[in-house]
């Protein structure tokens, strides 16, 4: 299965640019990790329910009410660029 693992393509899915050195190195290292986890496939999991997290809690509801939180200034304080109470980003559509 891990033969199909392609670092360059996967990194693209993750919106993560890599140098050529990183591509070569991560391909080798992660192929080794994937070979290690292959042994999980030998475990008989027929009829076993998956565990998504460890507590038996599923839906947690709360009242749909507004509560005080950040001011726009606080929300924008860490932004690389902002103006007019908006985050400024490079052009998305040509």
């Amino acid at each position, binding site marked *: 299965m891990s033969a199909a693992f392609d*670092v360059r393509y996967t990194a693209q899915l993750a919106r993560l640019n890599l140098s050529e050195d990183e591509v070569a190195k991560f391909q080798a290292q992660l192929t080794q990790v*994937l070979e290690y986890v292959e042994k999980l496939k030998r475990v008989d999991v027929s009829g076993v329910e998956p565990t*998504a997290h460890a507590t038996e809690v599923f839906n947690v509801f709360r009242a749909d009410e507004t509560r005080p939180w*950040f001011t726009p200034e606080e929300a924008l304080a860490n932004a*690389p660029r902002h103006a007019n109470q908006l985050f400024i980003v490079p052009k998305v559509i040509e």
Partner: protein
Amino acid sequence: MDLPALSVADLQQKLRSREISSVEVLDALDARITAVDSRIHGYLSRDLAAAKELAATADVSLPLGGVPIAIKDVINVKGEQCTCASKILQGYRSPYDATVIRKLRAAGAIPFGRCNMDEFAMGSSTENSAFGPTLNPWDTTRVPGGSSGGSAAVVAADEAFAALGSDTGGSIRQPAALCGIVGLKPTYGRVSRFGLVAFASSLDQIGPFTKTVRDASLLLNAIAGRDPLDSTSLDEPVPDYTALLGRDLKGVRLGMPREYFIEGIDPQVDAAIRAAMRHYESLGAEIVEVSLPHTEHAVGVYYIIATAECSANLARFDGVRYGHRAQGAANLLETYGRTREEGFGPEVKRRIILGTFVLSSGYSEAYYGCAQKVRTLIRRDFTAAFEKVDAIICPTAPEVAFKTGDRSDDPLKMYLADIFTIAANLAGICGISIPCGFASVDGTRLPIGLQLLARPFDEVRLLQIAHAYEQSTAWHQARPKQGND
């Protein structure tokens, strides 16, 4: 009097009797940090003036009144940096307090100092910090463990009375073991993660590093409980965690999992754990062999689930709302790709890629789906074991602190350092590491950690069992000498 060497409980006594003031405590602590942290590098930053302002009005009658507590740089404290030891968050200032910080403040404690860590809590040695590694106070050629290596090292070196860290696969217990102190991972759902920068949401838990088990109980008293802002925190009653401390161990059954005593474990670690078991027997506890048959799969399951969750959680670091943004990108897509290339270190990149792959179309059932099912089997192993015993007793780590650089370029070897700790996160149970001896390696004394694991929400019992051992041995009193000590 050597102030910074005090436990939290002893410090409180001196604060309450007015023998010392909280401001004096901070000055003494700051002097200690100045003297030793250039060697250890456990702290990324600290704001003495802000802490002293809080200390000036501290109410020492509160449970942790006037006690400074160091915080791993992954937990938000309003107005302070929260870099997660990553370049991508350099310069970030928290606009809010995490729930654990709000609770610590309500208990009178003073958050003081930001502790170094593996970037985004990914690592077992604190070598993955973008701001340089933390070194082990027992031997500065060795790692302190990770990912909360800074939190562990500053407590061990008396640069903090206590610290908070986070544990996703052992990141509290393993560094506590390698630094010779107490580290507690509470049950999943016991402590709110609101304001903890998420790594793997189904595994992450916040917990304390302390010099004694009593101190760990005091800190857990302050931070435990349901929080409406973290819907995974459970509405279980919060008992007084000091309640059973000092009770004897008659009738207590401890399980020795046969799968944890394997080849590859350091013989000195193995001997220390077996000696600890005999000690427990002398205290009246019974040692019973138990089996956790899916142990060998825990590392594989963990590195699928944790990386899958991290690839989703770290998608938020895209250079738009906070943190680093790459300059000169032609469009938004290029901004994302280059911001993340420049901002993340190699281990974080590896894990994002692995996590993205195991969730990707065509592979998610084979990897992620399969891992979630094996996770169920690992949980069942513990449920079955806890029908027979009150707690499980085993090593925290298969070895003592390793040399820096030893395996920083061998991810698989590094991942296997977590072999005894990650199952507790997968099963959601609570665990603690306490000092249980020393190994002698090339003439250096290196601490060994004993791990105890207990049922979900059974921290009262876990702490009782840990305390009984601690108080009848002297290991926790040993401290590494620093420079001019």
